[in-house]
């Protein structure tokens, strides 16, 4: 593995190995000294061209727990605002000697371009509405740690799927790992083309609630135009919000997940978000471990070059 740009194309065994490694890193993070020297002397550059709090902090924490050094770049107040091209920015950073780049960009495909320009290992931390592979793997890990398996579990992804790179990556990661995925959204919030996706699609959340092991909620992405395709927020809540009543209609061991940031009272009711069967904070904890596993897979062994 040279890069981690997408979960598509990976074999089930490869993804399972990544989850096994992440399980070990969850243990490391719970030790009295939650730090190992595995990546001592390696430098990791984070390039977040789009705002991010949790993903960037999670990668920072993962790199530090592996004893790697960090170079952080964000475009605010940088030469990007002076008109520098992405390629020049990236090559300038490369000249400072990082061993790997973690890239988030609003443009689909940007991390692939960065990998091509630099020849460095690149982790995609989210590109446009396209892919967010470490999010999908942390979600898979969270489900596996809760249920002990992914095979045969029924995961419903609810909400703004059209604008969601999280949904896209989860569909392929979870189905490769053996789960059944259903997309639940009004037609206007489904991807224009989802032919060939290994999913079932429905517009009716209430009809499938009872059969779900995992309800995976997405935020309406106003910044990508997600609000414009639905008449009003109250109407969205009435049909797709995980209200207390809908939560009670779930199986007693079904769980609720959300990649964050969540809008309480919109896609998820307040009491549901704080319920013991809401795994939202476990997702955050597992995110650090999964990112450690990916960094270790890319930088821990002998060089691929």
């Amino acid at each position: 593995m040279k890069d981690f740009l997408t979960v598509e194309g990976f074999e089930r065994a490869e993804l399972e190995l990544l989850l096994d490694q992440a399980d070990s890193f969850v243990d490391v993070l719970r030790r009295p000294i939650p730090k190992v020297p595995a990546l001592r002397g390696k430098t990791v550059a984070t390039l977040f061209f789009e705002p991010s709090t949790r993903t960037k902090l999670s990668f920072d924490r993962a790199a530090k727990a592996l004893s790697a050094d960090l170079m952080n770049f964000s475009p605010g107040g940088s030469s990007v605002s002076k008109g520098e091209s992405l390629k020049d920015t990236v090559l300038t950073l490369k000249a400072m000697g990082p061993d790997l780049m973690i890239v988030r960009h609003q443009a689909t495909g940007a991390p692939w371009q960065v990998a091509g320009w630099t020849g460095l290992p690149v982790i995609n931390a989210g590109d446009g509405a396209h892919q967010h592979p470490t999010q999908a793997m942390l979600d898979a890990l969270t489900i596996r740690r809760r249920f002990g398996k992914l095979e045969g579990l029924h995961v419903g992804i609810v909400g703004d799927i059209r604008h969601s790179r999280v949904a896209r990556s989860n569909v392929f990661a979870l189905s490769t790992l053996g789960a059944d995925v259903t997309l639940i959204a009004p037609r206007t919030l489904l991807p224009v083309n989802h032919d060939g996706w290994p999913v079932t699609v429905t517009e009716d959340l209430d009809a499938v609630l009872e059969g779900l092991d995992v309800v995976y909620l997405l935020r309406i992405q106003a910044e990508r135009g997600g609000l414009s395709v639905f008449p009003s927020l109250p109407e969205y809540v009435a049909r797709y919000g995980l209200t207390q009543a809908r939560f009670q209609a779930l199986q007693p061991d079904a769980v609720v997940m959300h990649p964050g940031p969540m809008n309480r009272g919109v896609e998820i009711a307040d009491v549901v978000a704080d319920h013991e069967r809401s795994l939202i904070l476990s997702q955050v904890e597992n995110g650090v471990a999964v990112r450690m596993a990916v960094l270790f897979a890319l930088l821990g062994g002998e060089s691929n070059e």
Partner: protein
Amino acid sequence: MPQVMTADEVRRALHRIAHEIIEQTDGAGDVVLIGIHTRGVPLARRIAAAIDSFEGLQVPVGTLDIGLYRDDLHQRPVTPLAATSIPVDLNGAVAVLVDDVLFTGRTVRAALDAIADLGRPAVVRLAVLVDRGHRQLPIRPDFVGKNLPTSLQERVGVMLAEIDGEDGVWVGRKGASVA
């Protein structure tokens, strides 16, 4: 490959090591046995069972994966990590590291670093089934099953029933298959 220890000899060596641990740690009351993955783990369990049968004392057994602490991490492929689990507080304990073969000493160096991140034992000792020499670091074992002079061109193969289906130690040329 010529066999240098039979199953009986492995068993006797481990029993002797168990006796030595009891003797040199004042009854093994504070001892924690820590098996280094892979074959150190069943060896640690067997030594614990022997101590139990001799003294009626159940010594805690932990497992240690040193994969994240290796100094040659970047010269080999990424390997799957195994569980590191120490069932008791290491602070103040007598930690006895257990491994199958002591060779360059680099695994033990990594294990000492790993242990330091898990607690501060009062002392750390080292028990190995085979010491084949060729140390690259100032590390020596406290309990040895068999001293086995080897050349650098040779390889030592340890097989244990729990993992390999049978017990024994073999020595042969590099590249030759074990047993």
